[in-house]
């Protein structure tokens, strides 16, 4: 591949929440800033910009990763999922509904990242339990909830998935 010059913009194209998107980026632009600044997709939040807080977590090819530790240019041709892709047609996803039932968010700053991490766990984990939920959550900082309600919400969704019966929102 040729060398891409620092000061120049280069076109990238990738799949964002199932739709093909494209835009221009300098090599140094972070994926988090590309999503928010170039595409206006502000669901993913930016807290620390060095990988610690987890607010910017998105899924790339199914894996939860930090968008602040990924260059936008690396995403060319890949599949990205963000919190905006969770809800379909005005209906929240089961995980989002469980977060609401259990008060698993207060200010909501950390929530988009946590939802993306837990969605990886729920999609890939055959045995989801409090221990591995807490392991996934160790990659996120939440300054409001104390994590207990987040764990309860995730456990409930996993039980729903296993039994095939949705819990009522009332």
């Amino acid at each position, binding site marked *: *591949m*040729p*060398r*891409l*010059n*620092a*000061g120049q913009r280069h076109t990238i194209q990738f799949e964002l929440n199932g739709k093909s998107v494209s835009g221009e980026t*300098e*090599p*140094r632009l*972070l994926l988090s*800033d590309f999503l928010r600044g170039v595409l206006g997709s502000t669901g993913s939040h930016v807290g620390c*910009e*060095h*990988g610690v807080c*987890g607010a910017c*977590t998105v899924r790339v090819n199914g*894996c*939860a*990763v*930090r968008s*602040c*530790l*990924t*260059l936008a*240019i*690396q995403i060319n041709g890949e599949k990205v999922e963000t919190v905006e892709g969770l809800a379909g047609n005005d209906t929240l996803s089961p995980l989002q509904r469980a977060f609401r039932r259990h008060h698993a968010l207060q200010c909501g700053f950390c929530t988009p990242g946590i939802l993306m*991490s837990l969605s*990886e766990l729920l999609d890939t984990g055959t045995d989801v339990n409090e221990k591995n939920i807490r*392991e*996934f959550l*160790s*990659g996120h900082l939440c300054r409001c909830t104390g994590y207990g309600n987040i764990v309860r919400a995730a456990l409930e969704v996993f039980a729903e998935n296993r039994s095939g019966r949705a819990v009522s929102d009332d």
Partner: protein
Amino acid sequence: MKPPVFDYAFADHLDEVAEFLADEGGEARVLAGGQSLIAMLNMRLVQPTLVVDISRLPDHDFITLKEGVVEIGCTVTQSALQFWPGLAESLPLLKRALPWVGHRQTRNKGTVCGSIAHADPSAELPLCLAALNGKAVLYSSRGERVLAAHELQVGTLETACAPDEMIRALRFPTAETGAGYGFGEVAYRHGDFAIVAVAVVATSECLRIALGGVGEKPEVCEWPLLEDKFLDDALNDLAWKLGTNEDQHATAYYRRSLIRSLGRRVVGEALACLG
């Protein structure tokens, strides 16, 4: 907290990487998982003129087991190794250590070779490489050379890998039959870098104990299999010899007490699995 400007190239072939590194005269950086490099760029701790992305380098996403050695290519992520089906049997020490390396979200991108190249003194994977006396395969336009852990690891964030070289793969010797392995660490938060990390290999003849977080690089020492009553003294001597560094995370006193208590527990864990 935004990266400085740099040129970017993503390599399709090992020789392309080697060429970029050689031509840039030490000002280029290899980008693997980016979990340390991009953080350092964001903080402007490094300002390379060129970043050579090897994360999608073809043919290097391999974990192979051959003649008592597990070889791991430079694009293999920490998560991929953690879920490699042969891990528990072939590399029981890494099986124990990998859950401590950052978080799932950083292991999904961070590579095994990248962690060795980054050489953080409290990182778990360099500690395991030292404890098992593994090797790194270095590649450059000058050719290939293989360095043992103690030759590779020279200091804090420093290895013997020259600016025009990259780590192409790592070689870990597989578990010895009947040997016992233990790993433990203390950090402020699960997934943070260790204040002290301990890796132990116990065989019928000796105990090999490796400490991370106490010096500029992993420290390894080997003892004959000690009677239980001598173990505390040996760990105490080790604590006074190595537990001298003091920083914002911990006092030297605290590090010494961790070497004694955590060391004791991890040696116990390794001895318990001794077959």
